[in-house]
C-alpha cells in the first residue's frame, strides 16, 4: 500500500504512513450515552472553553435545558473518537421532519436513504483516502432535510480525536430535498498528541432543485509543536453535488490546525443555474503545511461559482491554494470569479497559488485574480501608534484581511474563528 497515497501534485511532504500500524476504531474509554456525559473528561470541556466555542451546548451536553427566548438553539452531534456520543435537539428536528443523527444509526433506521445517496458524490475509488474511509469508516453524521423544509436550527458537529494512535474516518452525508435548506457547522478540535494522527474523512452533500446547503468548518486540529513534531494529517475529501436546478452549495472554511491539510471542498454544478461558493481562510504557522482549495465543475447551463481564498503563512510553514475551475461543453453561460490573496508573515514561510482553469465553452466567463503581499508597515505603524501591541495589531490586520470570508460564517462561529486566527499566529511576530 505504501506509496499509493502520495498525491504527487500536492505541495506537502511527510514520511510514509504505516497504514498497518494505525488503529481504525477506538471507542471512548467512558461509556457513551447521554447519562454519562457529565463524566466527560473535564480537560476536553476546558479545551472547548478556552477556544471560546459558544458552547451553551456544554450545558446541553450536561443535560441542562436552555431557557425560552435565549439564543437560537444549535443542534449538536458530537463525535468523540468515531462514536457519536450524543445528539441534541433531535426532537425539535424530528417535528420539522429533519433527520439528524449519527450515520451509524441512519444505516439502521433509514437504510433506504443511506443506500440511495451514500457514495454517489464521492465514490469509494475516488482517491486513496476516500477508499480508505469507505473501507473503515465507523461513524459520522447524517442529515436529511425533506422537501420544502427550512431546517429550523443550525446543525453542528464537533469532531475530536482524543485517543492515542487513532485515525478518524468519519463519514458525513447531507441530503437536502427540493426547496429545502440547511446550515451545517463542523468544528474540529484535538488535544495534544506527539505522534501524527491521520484524519481521513469523507463529506458528501446532495442538493436537489432550489435546495441550499451551507457548510461551515472551523478546523483546529493539533498542528504539531513549534518544531513540527506531532500534529494531525488532515486528508479529507469533501464534495457537494448541486443536482437540482437553482440549487446552491456554499463551503466556508477556516483552517488553522493540522500538521498537514490536504483538502479541496468541491461543487459539482449539475443543475441548471446552480451556484457553488467557496470561502476559505487558511492559516499556517511553525511547520504546518496546507494544500487546500476547491474544485468547481460546471456541467449545467448558467451555473455560477465564486471562490474567495485567503491564505496566511507565518513561521516556517507552507500554504498553498490549489483550485480547479472546469467548464464543460454544455455549461453555456457559466460564470466564475476567483480571488486568492496570500499574506506572508516572516521571511521563512511560503505562500503559493496554483489555480487550474479549464474552459470548453465559449459562452462561459472565467475571471481569476491572485495577489501576494506582506502586512504593510504603514498599517502596522498606524495600529502600534494607537497603543496596540504588535501581536494585537497583526491580529487586527489579519482579521481585516479575512473579513470577506469571516462574514460568511454564522455569527457564533465567526467570533470563534477570529479568536482562532489570533491563537494560531501567536509567536509569529515580535
Amino acid at each position, binding site marked *: 500500500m505504501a506509496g499509493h497515497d502520495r498525491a504527487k501534485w500536492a505541495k506537502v511532504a511527510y514520511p510514509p504512513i504505516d497504514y498497518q500500524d494505525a488503529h481504525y476504531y477506538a471507542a471512548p474509554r467512558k461509556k457513551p450515552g447521554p447519562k454519562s456525559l457529565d463524566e466527560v473528561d473535564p480537560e476536553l470541556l476546558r479545551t472547548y472553553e478556552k477556544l471560546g466555542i459558544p458552547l451553551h451546548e456544554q450545558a446541553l451536553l450536561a443535560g441542562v435545558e436552555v431557557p425560552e427566548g435565549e439564543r437560537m438553539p444549535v443542534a449538536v452531534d458530537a463525535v468523540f473518537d468515531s462514536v457519536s456520543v450524543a445528539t441534541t435537539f433531535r426532537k425539535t428536528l424530528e417535528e420539522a421532519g429533519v433527520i439528524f443523527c449519527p450515520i451509524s444509526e441512519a444505516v439502521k433506521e433509514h437504510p433506504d436513504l443511506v443506500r440511495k445517496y451514500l457514495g454517489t458524490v464521492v465514490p469509494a475509488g475516488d482517491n486513496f483516502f476516500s477508499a480508505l474511509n469507505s473501507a473503515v469508516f465507523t461513524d459520522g453524521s447524517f442529515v436529511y432535510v425533506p422537501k420544502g423544509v427550512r431546517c429550523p436550527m443550525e446543525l453542528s458537529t464537533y469532531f475530536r480525536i482524543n485517543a492515542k494512535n487513532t485515525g478518524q474516518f468519519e463519514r458525513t452525508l447531507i441530503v437536502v430535498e427540493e426547496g429545502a435548506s440547511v446550515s451545517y457547522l463542523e468544528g474540529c478540535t484535538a488535544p495534544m498528541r506527539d505522534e501524527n494522527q491521520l484524519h481521513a474523512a469523507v463529506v458528501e452533500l446532495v442538493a436537489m432543485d432550489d435546495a441550499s446547503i451551507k457548510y461551515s468548518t472551523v478546523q483546529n486540529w493539533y498542528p504539531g509543536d513549534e518544531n513540527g513534531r506531532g500534529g494531525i494529517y488532515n486528508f479529507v475529501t469533501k464534495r457537494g453535488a448541486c443536482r437540482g436546478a437553482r440549487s446552491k452549495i456554499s463551503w466556508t472554511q477556516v483552517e488553522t490546525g493540522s500538521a498537514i491539510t490536504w483538502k479541496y471542498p468541491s461543487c459539482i454544478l449539475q443543475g441548471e443555474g446552480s451556484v457553488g461558493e467557496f470561502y476559505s481562510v487558511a492559516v499556517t504557522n511553525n511547520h504546518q503545511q496546507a494544500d487546500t482549495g476547491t474544485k468547481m465543475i460546471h456541467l449545467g447551463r448558467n451555473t455560477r461559482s465564486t471562490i474567495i481564498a485567503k491564505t496566511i503563512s507565518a513561521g516556517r510553514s507552507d500554504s498553498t491554494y490549489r483550485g480547479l475551475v472546469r467548464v464543460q461543453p454544455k455549461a453555456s453561460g457559466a460564470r466564475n470569479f476567483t480571488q486568492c490573496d496570500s499574506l506572508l508573515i516572516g521571511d521563512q514561510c511560503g505562500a*503559493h497559488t496554483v489555480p487550474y*482553469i479549464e474552459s*470548453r465553452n*465559449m459562452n462561459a466567463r472565467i475571471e481569476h485574480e491572485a495577489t*501576494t503581499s506582506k502586512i504593510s508597515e504603514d498599517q502596522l505603524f498606524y495600529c502600534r501608534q494607537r497603543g496596540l501591541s504588535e501581536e494585537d495589531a497583526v491580529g487586527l490586520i489579519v482579521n481585516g484581511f479575512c473579513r470577506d470570508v469571516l462574514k460568511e460564517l454564522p455569527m457564533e462561529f465567526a467570533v470563534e474563528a477570529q479568536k482562532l486566527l489570533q491563537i494560531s499566529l501567536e509567536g509569529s511576530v515580535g
Partner: protein
Amino acid sequence: MNALSKDMSGPLALFANRLNTLAGPERQAAAGALARTGLPDRKSEAWHYTALRALGKQDYAAPPAQVDDGAVRALLDEVLRAHPAMAGLPRVVFVNGRHAPAFSALPDDVDLAFFAQAPRFGLQAAPDRDPLVALNTALAEDGLYLRVPAGVDGGHVMLVSLGVAGAEPVSFHPRHTVVVEKEAHLRLICVQAGQGAYFHNPVTDIVVEDGARLEHVTVQTEAAQAISLGTLYAHVGHQSVYDSFVLGLGGQLARHEVHARLGATRGVVHVNGAQRLAGQQVGDITSVITHAASDCTSRQTVRNVLDGHARGVFQGKVLVERVAQKTDGYQMNQALLLSADAEIDAKPELEIYADDVRCSHGATVGALDDEQLFYLRSRGIPEHEARQILIDAFLDETIALVTDATAQTFCRAVLAARFAGKGDVA
C-alpha cells in the same frame, strides 16, 4: 548500449534506434536518464495538459542528408516576404536542424560557431529533470553558438529554423546557445517554419550577462503536421534585461517552454506571448520564472485566441526564492474562445518564499464581447469584419509589448498574412 532498448517503451520507442547508437558521455548520460524517466505523460504535473500522443506510432528517423533546395528557398522566401526589412537582416538558416550556409547571411559584429563543429551543451539545461532536453542532448547534431562581445551592439540576428520533410516523419534536435556579454545588446528574431511531418525539438541556452539586453522574438509558424517542442533556458544577470515574446501560430502540437532565472539583483524578465490556433491544433506556452535575487522584476502577458477544435494551454509559474526580497512579479493570461469546441487550460502559478514581495496574477476566459460587437455593427461594420477587428485588437495588445520595432512589425505582418479575412468564423 543495447541494454537500453528494453527500457524504451511508449513514445520513447520511436527514437530507440538512434538512442542505442550514441557516443560521448553527455549523450549517453542523457539517454540513460531518458530510459529511466521515459517521455512525460499526463501524470507528470508539468505535462498535465499536453499529451505527447501526437508523436504517433511511426519511428522518427534522422533527416536525410540531402534536401530539396527549391523547397527550402520557397519557405525562406515566404518568411522574408512578410516584411520588407527582413531580407536585409543578417540571418543564420538551419534546415532540418543543420546549418545551411547557402541560405544564411551571417552577421558581422557577433561571434558565431556551430554545434556540429564544437558541441556545447551549456550549463542550464538539466537532462535528468526534463526528458525533452535529454532527448535533445542525446540526439543533437547541430545548432548555433552566438556570442555578442562585451559592450557591443549586435544589432539584429535572425535564426531561421526550417523543417523540410516528406511522408516519413523525421526529427531534429538543434542545440542553440546565445551569450550576450556585459553591457552588450542583441535583437534576436527566431522564426520556425516548414513543410511535411517533422518533430522539431530545439533547446536554447541563453545567458544575458550583467547590464546586457536581449530582445528575443520567436515567430512559430511550423507546418500543419509538425510537432514543435522547444525548451529555452535564460539566465539573467545583474541589471540586465531579457525581453521575450513568442507568437504561436503553427504546428499540430507546439509547446514553447521557457525557464528564465533572475540570478542577480535588478534584472528584468519579460515572457510575453500570443497564440492564435484553429482546427485541431494544440498550442502550449509554459514558463517558469525564477526570482533568485532581490529587486528583480518579471512581467508576463499571454493571450490565446482559439477557434475550431483548437486547444490552448498556458502554464506560468513564478517562483520567488527566499533571498528574492523586493520582487515585483506580474502575470496575466487571457483567452478568447471563438468556437463551441475550442478549449483553454490555464494554470498560472505563484510559488513564493520571500515576504517582502509584490506578486499578482490574473486570468480571464471568455467569448467576444457582444456589446463590443454590437457597437461596431451599429456603426455599419459587417459582422465578420467587426469580429476581425476585435480579435486583432485583442492580440495586438500583446504584440505592442514587443520593444523591437522591426520584430513588432514582422509579427503583425505574419499574423495579418495568415488570418486576413478569417474573422467570419463560427
